[in-house]
């Protein structure tokens, strides 16, 4: 299972591609790509880069744990939740920072 993630241009914030084709801050709103849907990823990554509003666009492996999307890599979990010690909130998106495909 994979998701699509990037950093938004204006804020630098971590964002996730959702079912509604919008990029969201909350990893729980990420669209989950199954093995059979993985072929779609390359096209979506290219489309995301072409918006010129998203940076470091990449697919990331996830699992579902008690109904919640959890990134496999610790790096991605920290990206999704913010620095750990002390805990800082993630970078907020402002109205102008929202991107969709």
């Amino acid at each position: 299972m994979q998701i699509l993630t990037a950093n938004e241009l204006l804020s630098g914030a971590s964002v996730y591609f959702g079912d509604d084709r919008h990029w969201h801050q909350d990893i729980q709103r990420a669209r989950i790509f199954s093995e059979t849907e993985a072929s779609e990823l390359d096209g979506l990554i290219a489309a995301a880069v072409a918006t010129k509003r998203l940076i470091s666009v990449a697919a990331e492996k996830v699992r579902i744990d008690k109904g919640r999307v959890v990134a496999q890599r610790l790096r991605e979990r920290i990206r999704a939740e913010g620095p750990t010690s002390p805990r800082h909130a993630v970078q907020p998106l402002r109205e102008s920072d929202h991107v969709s495909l």
Partner: protein
Amino acid sequence: MYRYDEFDLGFVSGRVDQFRDQVRRRIAGELTEEQFRPLRLMNGLYLQLHAYMLRVCVPYGTMNAPQLRKLAHIARKYDRGYGHFTTRQNIQFNWPRLQDVPDILEELSEVEMHAIQTSGNCIRNVTTDQFAGAAADEIIDPRPVAEIIRQWSSLHPEFTFLPRKFKIAITGAPEDRAAVRFHDIGLMAQEDEAGEVGWSVYVGGGMGRTPMIGQRIRNFVPHEDLLAYLESVLRVYNRYGRRDNKYKARIKILVHEEGLATIREQVDSEFEKVRGGILTLPEEELSRIRAYFAPPQFVLSDDRFNLADLKRNDAGFARFVEYNSHPHRQAGYTSLTISLKPIGGVPGDATAEQMEVVADLAERFSFNELRVSHEQNLVLPHVAIRDVRAVYDVLKEYALAEANVGLITDMITCPGLDYCALANARSIPIAQDLARRFGTPERQAEIGPLKINISGCINACGHHHVGHIGVLGVEKKGTELYQLTLGGDASESAAIGDILGPGIVAEAVPDAVERLVQTYLGLRETKDETFIAAVKRVGAVPFREAYLAT
């Protein structure tokens, strides 16, 4: 300290305008990220895990009060109210937004600061001894020469696209507090037989995945020839450095592969061509720059600390004096280190309010001067001994009076996986756990001088290779592991730490360090034998055994 002339002012404000336009074009979609990335990096703007990170240059770690106050203002207005001081004596802001960066750079230019050359394959901020211009053991104040190197290396047309980044450190004292032998070029002040002061040049030092100790390439270079000599080294590196492999592109690899003798020959041949030319530094120019760094008007006094007395009457203040003050060349004065390593805090971080407090103290008690140390602390370089109590009282009020400089909790720590896009593992929580374990004043005093350095990956920004105990974060099958090293030393007796054994999980690090500390306490000959001296005397074996015992 140095003040910008018209050229500097025009250059820095021109760069702000240029970058403002580049940001505008990027946001308007006229530039792709691929096109924009090198432009933002040339202005110190990185993209990290959560946001952009702006690295602001503090040239050779020297600042004045208005500059620190401006950094506080930027932290508050454009960031989250804090900044992080780094091992290159710079400061990083972790949360700026792209559109704000041109405004931040403009504000910085108002106080003669910028973020140029804090990234990219160019000559980075020259670092130096944090007590430069104040230390009792200093042969010469290295800052005028550091400033001349800054001017020579800023936007040097030949050296803007080197094979890799290039770091220079310089010290004017025999005690190396600037880790000069772990830099691409290290300069140590030296006196020749006639008593003339010049520079001993080391080349090919560095940390990262292939740590190496710099080797002396020339015993003595007079001031007037220094730029010509540096230019010669850089030319040889620029010509022969390995551009084919990023991991082999630093000058240390070139020196290692070709051998010092070959590099010396090539540098000497280049030096013969450029020596005596336009890079010759006339004495008048050196004097002109030196004038900016003239010592302040010290008040004559023979005040001294009476530590025994203080210990009897005020143990907290006595500890502060014992660990955080450094001998000054002027009688009646001291240099005070303000530790940015509070127990359980984030090493190197300072809040906007703390920066303002330190700026006020610098104005009131240190002739408006401040320093950033490569060990991620701040320094008030010139404090009258009679004022130290007043400074301490203010610092205490703002959680800045931790008396731990040089002790086990004064750890160099990189941002690690909490912020850094390149990290394998977190560094900050490791430092916090260790500080909590060893943080009582009694425990720290019992252990004495001991440097623990922590990096979140092999890039070694946390200088783990030269920690007396080094901690390197690695990742194995999705788990953070920590590899411990022993015996590193950044001082003039430079050494690279040896790996003690397999990596361990984060929770096991405090116990492992505890076993190393207990081993030391058990085998030291006297209380005055430091941890690193004991390691050098007995070797790694008993420590390795202790490390491996669970």
